[in-house]
């Protein structure tokens, strides 16, 4: 029984961690759905937002005021990216846009660290990382809180996408650019809004992960894990991102602990790549991920 609870604990903590991956992956999906751009800079945006936020907090600003300021900053950033990078590159092949966002990732990382320094900052948002008491397994308060925040974000986004005018415009563009244009939806506005939302999602993800790991350079590497989540879930499915995040989180934890135990702790650290292998295997059978739209296209 003891053993069962141990594995259960591994599973739950993996799952909760997975929800946090989903949060990062969500930013990708938003941009990919509406503009077809695969935004590699999402992780750097997390770093950028979180670093800005933590600096404001350390300058003794009020929590909510700092949050508001950073949200404003992310919106300005989104608009700037749209103007400087995306507009000149309209109608270029998607792979070019992808490489441009790789460049953007480096630029943002450099900028954030140039302005705010490279030393890691601790971020405390007032939720302890201690486990609940009285349960057979230990679940961290913070992980549960982060998962909750993620779910709230997702809920808000779903309502936004389905109930508001702008949200519907976004979905229209995602379905068909030209049809959306023809009914009078401004693509510019939609892309700006998408990037702004993705920026805010990145900020929230950055704050969550920053609380976990400290706000530092490695934050931008979370993006790499999110990529595996993305290919597993499909690039253009919000629910896919969520479910795949949970699957990846649980899978990599269970596999890592499993291998460690089975080999008497000789091998560990499979977390760095197991998610990719899982995604690769799935890709061989479902080339558009578990939930992605199947575009019929010969390869």
């Amino acid at each position: 029984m003891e053993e069962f609870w141990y594995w259960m604990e591994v599973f739950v903590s993996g799952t909760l961690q997975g929800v946090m991956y989903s949060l990062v992956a969500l930013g990708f999906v938003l941009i990919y759905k509406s503009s077809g751009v695969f935004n590699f800079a999402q992780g750097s945006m997390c770093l950028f937002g979180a670093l800005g936020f933590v600096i404001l907090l350390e300058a003794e600003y009020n929590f909510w005021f700092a949050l508001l300021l950073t949200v404003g900053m992310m919106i300005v950033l989104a608009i700037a990216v749209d103007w400087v990078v995306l507009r000149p590159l309209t109608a270029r092949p998607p792979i070019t846009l992808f490489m441009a966002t790789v460049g953007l990732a480096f630029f943002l990382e450099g900028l954030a660290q140039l302005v705010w320094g490279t030393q890691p900052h601790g971020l405390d948002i007032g939720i302890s990382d201690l486990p609940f008491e009285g349960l057979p397994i230990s679940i961290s308060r913070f992980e549960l809180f982060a998962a909750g925040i993620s779910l709230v974000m997702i809920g808000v986004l779903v309502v936004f996408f389905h109930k508001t005018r702008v949200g519907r415009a976004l979905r229209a563009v995602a379905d068909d650019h030209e049809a959306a244009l023809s009914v009078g939806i401004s693509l510019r506005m939609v892309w700006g809004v998408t990037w702004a939302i993705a920026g805010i999602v990145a900020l929230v993800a950055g704050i969550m992960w920053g609380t976990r790991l400290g706000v530092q350079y490695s934050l931008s590497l979370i993006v790499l894990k999110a990529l595996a989540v993305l290919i597993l879930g499909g690039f253009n499915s919000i629910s896919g991102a969520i479910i795949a995040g949970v699957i990846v989180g649980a899978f990599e934890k269970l596999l890592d602990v499993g291998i460690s135990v089975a080999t008497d702790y000789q091998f560990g650290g499979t977390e760095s790549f197991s998610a990719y292998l899982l995604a690769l295997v799935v890709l061989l059978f479902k080339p558009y991920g578990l939930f992605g739209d199947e575009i019929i296209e010969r390869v």
Partner: protein
Amino acid sequence: MIYRQTGLFVTSYAKDMRMFPIPQDRWGIAFVLFVAYVIIPVFASEYWISTIFTVVLIYSLAAIGLNLLTGYCGQLSLGQAGFMAVGAYAAFNFAVRLPGLPVVVNFLLGGVCAALVGLLFGLPSLRIKGFYLAVATLAAQFTIEWVIVSFNWFAAGNMMGAIDTPRMVILGWHVESVTDKYLLTLSVVVVLAFAAKNLVRGEIGRSWMAIRDLDVAAEMIGIRLFPQKLLAFMVSAFYAGVAGALLAFCYLGSLEITSFELLVSFRILGMIIVGGLGTITGSFLGAAFIILLPILISNVAAQFASTQVTQFTANAEVMLFGALIIGFLILEPLGLARLWRSLKDKLRLWPFPY
């Protein structure tokens, strides 16, 4: 008038098909080779030879490899440094476990091992392309890193894949001094660069370009997509592997797995974007540019020396690297190679206005 493409009358098929049909190009290549083989070893300082020329050559080779795959065949790969690691560690193991092999054979065997691993990770290109494939190649990067670190057999029992490369001997020639290492690197790179140049103008290269431009159309004219893509992955990984082996043996000497981290893959990608996708010249120009730029920045920054200068330059470099990628994609998608070409076009008329 100096650089002419007209008035060349060939009298045999062999001459018609040669690699550089224009005499000025041939002189140019001969001159570059002369500078590389004679002038640089004689006149350049040891610092320049070891930290700049050798490194630029090695990364050019890796960039050529990626350019074959991405620039010619259109398959984006983010795992080039992983394949370099395979080449480096394979060459190391051949050198340590089979002493007596000429070191060049070790390099080539390293390349072959990398090619086999490349074949394995090229398999997903059967089903996927574009971003999905790019992300899938990240799997190569991380898996290779993990395997080398976890199974310390690869590093002859050392932790973190730390290795010291053994001495290099080729048929009695002890490659020890900086200049020797430079010359060895140069020779390998020159041979492989000419091989690549030849490859891309032949049937294989043309098939790759057809696949890059439109895969369905390529299939219609009878190109078998999957074998060709796999071949591109293998050749690309082979070049990366040899480059990795050179990096380990001729430049670093002692290294850890961190020498082949993901960032290196991105740097190589940056090199081919800045240099020019789908050109061999561009791979050299891009590698030189990306490697020289940080050195230039830190030298400029040294003029304004202050306490925070190193941190500042490190971040400014990263920023500039990103800005360059974006800038080149927007302003000159064909890279430095295109600028070079424009220059040659100008030279065709010069000094006459038209």
